């Protein structure tokens, strides 16, 4: 077994109003960052997982996202990085 560190991003699904993202986008515009388009504010989780391989760790994290970490009605998730810790 190896210990892996996984970075997981969870963001509000496209098409669902994200008032936090809109507030941030508006604030960036008022600071002069006129190049900013859509902003989504989500969550970033770092999860340590003991697994036989990086693929197994990734599969476990996917199951965790589907069951608990992300809401399937409103959120998308992405397992951004898998590293040995």
């Amino acid at each position, binding site marked *: 077994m190896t210990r892996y560190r996984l970075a997981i991003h969870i963001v509000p699904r496209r098409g*669902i109003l994200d*008032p936090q993202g809109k*507030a941030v986008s508006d604030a960036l515009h008022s600071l002069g960052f006129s190049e900013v388009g859509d902003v989504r504010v989500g969550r970033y989780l770092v999860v340590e997982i003991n697994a036989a391989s990086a693929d197994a760790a990734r599969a476990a994290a996917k199951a965790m996202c589907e069951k*608990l970490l992300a*809401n399937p*009605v*409103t959120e998308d998730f992405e397992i951004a990085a898998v590293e040995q810790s």
Partner: protein
Amino acid sequence: MKAGIVRFPGSNCDEDAYRAVADGLGQEAVYLWHKDHDLQNVDLVILPGGFSYGDYLRAGAIARFSPIMQEVVAFAKRGGMVLGICNGFQIACEAGLLPGALLRNASLRFVSAPVALRVETIATRFTSQYHLGQILQIPIAHGDGRYTADADTLARIEGEGHVAFRYVTPSGDVTEAANPNGSLRNIAGITNAAGNVLGMMPHPERAMDAWLGSTDGTPLFRSIVDYLSSGVGA
């Protein structure tokens, strides 16, 4: 009727619900502890308002996995009546007892205020003692009450008459200004397809007596008692 009010760490409307049943209706009420598996033969489970498990991760997300919720879900699947109020509505959605989800208020503000609701159906076990289209005054107190569902789900719950309450103006119009949280279609409360689970963000248990400012919550509880005492209930 015997009602069981679930107490999660962070529940804060459990006593309001208890008093609504015990004092408001004169019916039996018991508390159900989140770590227990025993529903104590109740006829109705109330998931009360509050901030169960600190709203960590998402409102209702952790409560759903508590021991008592395994029993509540099984009870609902057998046709048992479940009333989810505020955080209880969020928990019921997370547990899959009701379709959709509740997101951060569009205003990003916590809103604590009396609101006007319109009764959208009286063909449920929870609303039979109202008049169709009746305007109610019931308080809300939440930061995450924006009801959301995908387009197919919305069409289904609207088409099958599962929207129980909508936020309206005092004269009964569905407008954006009357919507306190940005809920799709101004939805304030829904039932499941089988009709034995109701979730709503407003607090009927806080509108049970004139000194509370409104008695418009009482018929909701009376509807439940009426259904259960008619002999067709669990």
